[in-house]
């Protein structure tokens, strides 16, 4: 991630101002626990995940190499393609709505009031788990008893089968996750806004620019690098949607909310086909790498207009 570069340079410049002492043995001792954790639970599983994707593995007997079988099966599996489609649909809705809302909220927090209590309230939904969010909305959006549908009916509108119709289920899940994450995203953008010097706005005001005009001509262009970083982080997160689906719909109705991560879980723990599940994980990983790379290039995340 782009976060690393400036600090690395900083570090090498700071190196040893007062004579060089070699701390190799002590350093080894200090990084040992972290290194073990890193090697055993991050590097090794990454390599092993890729290896398992070329095997037939049911967890009980040792994995058996079967070449490209899992990948061939994946390409021919309509449920996989459907899951990929559903996931993409979810990501587009979730990220589209969340980013626009978060941007508006962030700008308002910047321009209306910078009070901490307001940021605290906006962040509150982020403090509870996805499971809690799914549970409470399952209840609020219940067809007969939910307050959401009671309000709709009270307004003379039709009740909506939010989580039990194949048309509404993905938009609803996307909205539930917007509820939980929009405050967090808004605060990230807000932090980015803090980096834009107030003097730019003052100059705009002297020139008689309206708030809307300043938003378009100052905020958006100067915020671009931050915004693209926020997008990369949230898109990668959004692709991994699982919790809400597992609690609220279990992939249904039929396959209409069977997102990729839920299908992978189902194949691994429902049918014990760990090899095939790993192959789909590799596919998801590849999709994420490509999307991150494309986003990075498209939004020119590395260059700032502020410098």
């Amino acid at each position: 991630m782009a976060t690393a570069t400036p600090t690395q340079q900083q570090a090498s410049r700071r190196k040893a101002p007062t004579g060089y002492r070699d701390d190799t043995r002590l350093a080894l001792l200090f990084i040992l626990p972290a290194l073990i954790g890193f090697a055993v639970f991050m590097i090794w599983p990454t390599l092993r995940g890729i290896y398992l994707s070329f095997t037939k593995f049911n967890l009980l007997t040792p994995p058996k190499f079967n070449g490209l079988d899992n990948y061939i099966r994946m390409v021919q599996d309509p449920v996989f393609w459907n899951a990929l489609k559903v996931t993409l649909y979810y990501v587009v809705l979730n990220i589209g709505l969340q980013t626009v809302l978060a941007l508006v909220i962030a700008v308002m927090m910047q321009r209306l009031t910078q009070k901490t209590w307001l940021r605290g309230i906006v962040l509150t939904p982020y403090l509870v788990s996805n499971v809690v969010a799914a549970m409470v909305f399952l209840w609020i959006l219940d067809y007969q008893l939910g307050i959401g549908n009671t309000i709709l009916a009270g307004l003379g509108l039709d009740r909506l089968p939010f989580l039990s119709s194949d048309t509404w289920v993905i938009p609803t899940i996307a909205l539930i996750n917007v509820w939980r994450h929009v405050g967090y995203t808004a605060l990230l953008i807000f932090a980015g806004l803090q980096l834009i010097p107030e003097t730019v706005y003052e100059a705009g005001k002297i020139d008689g620019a309206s708030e809307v005009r300043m938003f378009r001509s100052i905020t958006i262009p100067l915020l671009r690098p931050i915004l693209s970083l926020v997008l990369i982080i949230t898109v990668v997160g959004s692709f991994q949607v699982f919790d809400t689906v597992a609690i609220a719909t279990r992939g249904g109705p039929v396959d209409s909310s069977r997102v990729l991560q839920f299908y992978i879980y189902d194949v691994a723990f429902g049918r014990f086909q760990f090899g095939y599940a790993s192959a789909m994980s590799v596919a998801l990983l590849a999709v994420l790498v490509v999307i991150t790379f494309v986003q990075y290039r498209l939004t020119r995340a590395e260059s700032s207009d502020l410098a």
Partner: protein
Amino acid sequence: MTTDTTPQVATIAPTTTVRHAAPKEPRSFNPGRALAWAFMILVILVSLFPFYWMLRTALSSNNALYAGSHSLLPVQASAGGFERVFGLQTGQEAIDAGGAGQAINFWRYLFNSVVVSTLITVGQVFFSAMAAYAFARLQWKHREKVFAFFLAGLMIPAIFTLLPNFVLIKQLGLVDTLLGIALPTMFMTPFAVFFLRQFFLGISREVEEAALMDGASKVRVFFRLILPMSVAPITTLAILTYIASWNEYFWALMVSYTDKSRVLTVALGVFKSQTPQTGPDWSGLMAATLVAALPMLVLFMLFAKRIVNSIGFSGIK
């Protein structure tokens, strides 16, 4: 292991961001401003209403919810929902009230969640601090290369390591144990190391040099000087790690099978699947949901300012 939909990559800014004073606006009425405030009030309402609704439903009698679905206050106020959650009602009472009648005891899950989150937080923060110190202050060969390697770990989505890690935890015989849930994130996350290293780099070298002159060892400097001077960022990191591990669902779901290792998120899912399909025990479910959410809400109330201000960007200009 964080499979939370927003990974913590850019969560914390160790260096406080430059704060500009809020622009002084003239206090005259302005329709644009009024509209903006109306929008913000709507945002506040939507953010907080579900929490009120959990409480309102949890304090209602389940059988009265149908008739009282319009009521904004609890209908036939009762603590029955909470009693079912903590296993204080007999099976028959629970079934009569619309519950599943199966014995559940949330104290157990609460305890499990506390143990898992504490193990992860203490281990991860301490070991990451040690590594961060070695990367920030100790002189050794290949230091920058090893650090770059650690940082590359930021790019591996947590979700990708879950399946192979489960296989490993199973081979270690740790499935369905609290240690098995905690182990993969107990040693480090690349983010924690990166974050603390940033902060350690900012600590003045002079104090450290002085202590070394006085004959203190580097180990002593770390424990007696660096750690005490870093209480603020370490607390922030610990709170965020605690919240993330408390809210984790996917990984815990893979590893725990029985009450022995069920954490609150997983237990909530099980509780939900046990409730009658027709006419679910909503007041019991909402009571359970509230119990699961409450500890983090309390933590947030205690540390709101610190948590809110910690969200930002580290290392980016």
